[in-house]
């Protein structure tokens, strides 16, 4: 298992180094391009999840009816809901399973950025084990970009703010308006907590990772918008006047 993981990491580290080589030794640009590529490559995992979410969203009125009808029998409520999903050919697990499948890719990407930005001897030893000999001449990577040293946190906190903003927008776009007040309240709480938490973490992470978060969020927002519309961010498409 660790060999598969190392192979994945090796591929990603060397892809980043290759992009750095061909993109005028600009590591921020390499991260941005690689992020877009990774998001596109993981589309087969994310699209079914987003389509499943959209289908579930469209069934909300019927689910609400079941909820009201069996308000005092939670077991029956669940059974009927699952029956409805089955009739409509929706697998609710599709909302989560693809996320689990793409998690290793996300983690490998985080780790490969951290590895490529090695700025301590032990990190450099680790990079030395993954970088191919033909790309080793690029090490250490030039980590300056605008006001940033990509191996260190953003001193101006601009990237953490962008991470908070884009994470919030992505969650808003990804989450359809809910008719259930309890669920809506929980979702709202998550939508505030998660971006702040990510922003807080970003304050102490290498700013190269923050670049990844921002680009990844922007791509995610675009994909989500074209599939399911504005979610909770904008009035839903085709629902005006109802």
């Amino acid at each position, binding site marked *: 298992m660790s060999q598969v993981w190392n192979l994945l990491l090796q591929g990603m580290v060397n892809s980043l180094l290759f992009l750095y080589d061909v993109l005028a030794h600009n590591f921020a640009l390499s991260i941005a391009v690689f992020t877009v590529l990774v998001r596109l490559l993981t589309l087969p995992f994310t699209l079914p999840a987003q389509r499943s979410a959209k289908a*579930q969203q469209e069934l909300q009125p019927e*689910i609400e009816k079941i909820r009201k009808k069996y308000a005092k029998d939670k077991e029956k409520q*669940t059974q009927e*809901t699952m029956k409805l999903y089955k009739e409509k050919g929706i697998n*609710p697990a599709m*909302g*989560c399973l693809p*996320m*689990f499948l793409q*998690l290793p890719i*996300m*983690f490998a990407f*985080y*780790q490969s950025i*951290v590895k490529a930005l090695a*700025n*301590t*001897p*032990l*990190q*450099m*030893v680790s990079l*030395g*084990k993954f970088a191919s*000999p033909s790309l*080793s*001449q690029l*090490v*250490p990577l030039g980590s300056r970009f605008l006001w940033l040293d990509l*191996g260190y946190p953003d001193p101006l906190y601009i990237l953490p703010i962008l991470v908070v903003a884009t994470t919030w927008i992505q969650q808003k776009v990804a989450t359809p308006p*809910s008719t*259930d007040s*309890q*669920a809506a309240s*929980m*979702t709202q709480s*998550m939508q505030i907590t*998660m971006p702040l*938490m*990510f922003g807080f*973490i970003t304050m*102490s*992470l*290498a700013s190269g*990772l923050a670049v990844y978060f921002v680009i990844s969020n922007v791509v995610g927002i675009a994909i989500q918008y074209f599939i399911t519309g504005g979610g909770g961010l904008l009035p839903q498409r085709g629902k005006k006047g109802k």
Partner: protein
Amino acid sequence: MRRIMTGPKVVLWLFIIVALLTGCRGGAPLTSWPGLTVVEDMVYVAAGAKVYALEADTGNQKWEFPGEEKKGPFYATPAHFVLDGQSTGVEEGLVFVGSNDNNLYALDAVTGNQRWSFATQKPIIAGPAVAGDTVYVASADSKVYALEAATGVGRWEFTTGNWVWATPLVADDKVYVGSMDHKMYCLDAESGQKLWEFKADGAIATTPTLAGDLLYFGAFDSKVYALDTASGEKKWEFQSGAWVWSQPLVVGDTVYVGSMDKAVYALDAASGQKKWEFATDGAVLASPAFAEALLYVASEDKQLYALDATTGQKRWRFTAQTSIFAPPALADGVVYTCSQDGRVYALNAGNGNQRWVFPRTEQ
């Protein structure tokens, strides 16, 4: 149903955050490896957040820096210096140690008390070099500094094109230092003026070794180079299988050098031809040490090997609890080594039997 779906999503988010906090942050406790220096009857060790002075015979601790109540940043390999005491008439020992907090500290060798410090702009990764009354220290701020050893007052500084992670070598009024900008520089020790530079195909993090009129060093292009010290001209190069971080050791007509390809090589000093190689199970970052026809090689595979220097045959090996990246040191029939967990071992150089370990296991 929405409530049913919310649970797993929360778990997923938390999973991501935990992974970020544990796996992706640069704040790992160890950023480099320990280093030790043996001077007469003392072993000075920089291990993680502390510098220790230990009695070479017993391993008993004489002092630690910073004091018990404090935990410092990472410290690089110490260097020892004897102040001639012209003004006081009393010789005083100083221990110089660079730190991850950007400072070079001068400590009293007897008490461990701080005498002075000198601030650079970025972490000091490598140990300093001392020659005459000058201490030379390199920093990740891309500079090499020459300081008055007694006071820490700056004499000159030289700027390279990238981080300097290697200890400078001072010999024959020249300072040789490798930089992560891929260049080996030769500087005038008195003025810091550049005499020549040589560009390798990869970053240089090794301290060079001088033998005769050749300068030997390795680089991240997986090569070992031999340069003419007068001109900086390349005499030969040897291609290993991975980055070379280990400082070459020259004994007679043989260059011994470790590589991250897990091997240690014996090369002909004049031509670079391979005489033999010995494979370990981990990267060899440390410079080998030599005594009594034995070559001592530390490896990431937690072993300290004693090899026949002529044939490369293994004589004995000692297993530590963690990887060994620090170069071993030899004195009076004892080989000292320090593993990544900060343990210092004193071993009988002839057979590898352990004499003492610091800290003591019962502590």
